[in-house]
């Protein structure tokens, strides 16, 4: 049943790949012109696109643990996205190549003149940094590939296979804390150490929540696109969009909560080594980012998502999701870019072309995986119960 149920996305996949490769070629020209700028733009784009495979990893674990109709209808989107983690290893190569251009602690000349960096050297040194990155990737790849493989095995045959669901639940139970810990450590390594003197304990969670938000927005867009296709067509209802809309509202609030908590704590303490991070982002043009994020990353989606009518409409929810995905990039750019040009706003065309390149290639890979299996895990023993609950509702 899998082969016949699978829907291919050849057209969209080819277009995404062409756009991605075109933008990549353009970006490589930029690399010859200004390698340092290339690496900096690459890091921002990388931290943005990392959200999709990893956020999906977190959500698929959550879904395996809890079940529920909203999870079943987007599960194949999540699993296909989580399965793209090996591509993120490939995308990490430029970060490794540009290590000395990106991180002060990787430059021996700077470390030699800086006692604090010497003190931090046992953690912040190139070999250990690479070892940690290898560990994160190994864990992500092993867990996500197992999740995908077992789910694929479950599709075989026509009978429900509860033993595989049990196995997926056990793995996912461990997967959730693994996800939170590895993402925290990875984003602290790759993002926070851009300002090696500065530290914030909530920094990792900021990315965890951002990844959750991006994944929800992406899943909503994909579900709206896929809801007309079999076997999803007879199953997706307004209630599913309502649930996903509510989750997105919760994550918009959670993002604001995390971002503001970090600011409030540092603002209250008012200590020189902590406030420098905000001072670097409060002048020369960067100061407009925080109000823009407050208004358009939090207030606007928050108010729009309060209305039930809008959460139940696939079109309205998709528009909000696209908006959230755009603002996610603004947020990541604001977290990363001021480290390279503090108190002086700078934007380079590579900051745009690299995320497009990465996104195009990633999307093509994702669609290739999504097209390789049924859009519903029909052999999960919990699916009938989960999708039955909405049988008295109106179709989407």
């Amino acid at each position, binding site marked *: 049943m899998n082969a016949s149920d699978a829907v291919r996305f050849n057209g969209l996949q080819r277009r995404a790949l062409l756009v991605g490769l075109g933008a990549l070629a353009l970006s490589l020209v930029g690399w010859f012109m200004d390698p340092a700028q290339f690496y900096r733009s690459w890091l921002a784009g990388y931290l943005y696109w990392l959200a999709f495979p990893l956020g999906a990893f977190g959500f698929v674990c959550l879904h395996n643990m809890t079940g529920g109709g909203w999870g079943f209808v987007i599960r194949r989107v999540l699993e296909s996205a989580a399965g793209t983690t090996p591509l993120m290893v490939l995308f990490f190569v430029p970060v490794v190549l540009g290590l000395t251009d990106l991180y002060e602690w990787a430059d021996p000349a700077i470390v030699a003149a800086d006692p604090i960096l010497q003190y931090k050297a046992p953690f912040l040194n190139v070999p250990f940094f690479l070892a940690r990155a290898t560990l994160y990737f190994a864990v992500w790849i092993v867990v996500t590939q197992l999740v995908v493989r077992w789910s694929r095995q479950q599709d075989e045959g026509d009978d429900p296979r509860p033993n595989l669901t049990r196995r997926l639940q056990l793995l996912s139970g461990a997967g959730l804390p693994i996800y939170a810990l590895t993402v925290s450590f990875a984003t602290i390594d790759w993002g926070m150490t851009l300002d090696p003197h500065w530290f914030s304990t909530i920094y990792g969670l900021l990315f965890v929540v951002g990844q959750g938000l991006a994944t929800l927005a992406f899943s909503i867009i994909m579900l709206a696109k896929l809801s007309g296709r079999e076997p999803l067509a007879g199953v997706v209802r307004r209630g599913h969009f309502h649930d996903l809309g509510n989750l997105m509202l919760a994550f918009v609030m959670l993002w604001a909560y995390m971002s503001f908590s970090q*600011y409030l704590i540092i603002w209250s303490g008012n200590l020189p080594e902590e406030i420098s991070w905000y001072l670097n982002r409060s002048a020369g043009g960067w100061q407009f980012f925080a109000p823009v994020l407050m208004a358009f990353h939090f207030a606007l989606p928050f108010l729009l998502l309060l209305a039930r009518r809008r959460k139940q409409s696939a079109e309205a929810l998709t528009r909000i999701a696209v908006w959230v995905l755009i603002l996610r990039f603004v947020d990541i750019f604001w977290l990363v870019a001021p480290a390279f040009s503090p108190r002086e706003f700078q934007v380079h065309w590579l900051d745009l072309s690299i995320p497009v390149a990465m996104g195009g290639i990633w999307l093509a890979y994702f669609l290739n995986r999504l097209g390789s299996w049924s859009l519903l895990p029909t052999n999960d023993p919990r699916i009938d119960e989960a999708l039955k609950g909405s049988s*008295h*509702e109106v179709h989407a």
Partner: protein
Amino acid sequence: MNDVHAVYGLMVEFASTDDLLDGCCTTRDAGFKKIDAFSPAPIHGLTEAIGYQGKGWIAKTVFIGGLLGALTGFGLQAWTSAVAYPLNIGGRPYVSWPAFIPITFEMTILVAVLAAVFGMLAWNKLPQPYHPVFNVQRFKLASSDRFFLVVESIDAKFDRDQTRTFLEGLDNAVGVYDVEY
């Protein structure tokens, strides 16, 4: 239709949630508008099954409550620290908004929740010590293990005999009772 106000309505009893949901859907699809369902516990999908089209009054009440809470919380702090008792804290401006956000947030939640609880009671016209449904002997089981559906006599389609026949024909209906005033 002169029997419209002779009874409050007709009540039908079911033994399970699924029977109640199916019965509600059938009744709703038959064109009845003034129907209500009673069960010992919340049932997912029941509001849709009785065709309830909420006007969202509670949502609006809660939103206004939250807004009032936010303004009160922020205003009270701004007024006390800038007007009533200005105090220089760490050289910061009197109206240092970041410090006011946690209490503003708490006040938003508090007043929104109070508005939700009391708004719900008010829009439902509760507490209501007397209601005709309690005149049906078996209705007391609605708080233990039975499920009831009521078609009110003010419904445009209501006819005491025809509606009774219709309700008796519902799948797995245990019994149909007159609801006296």
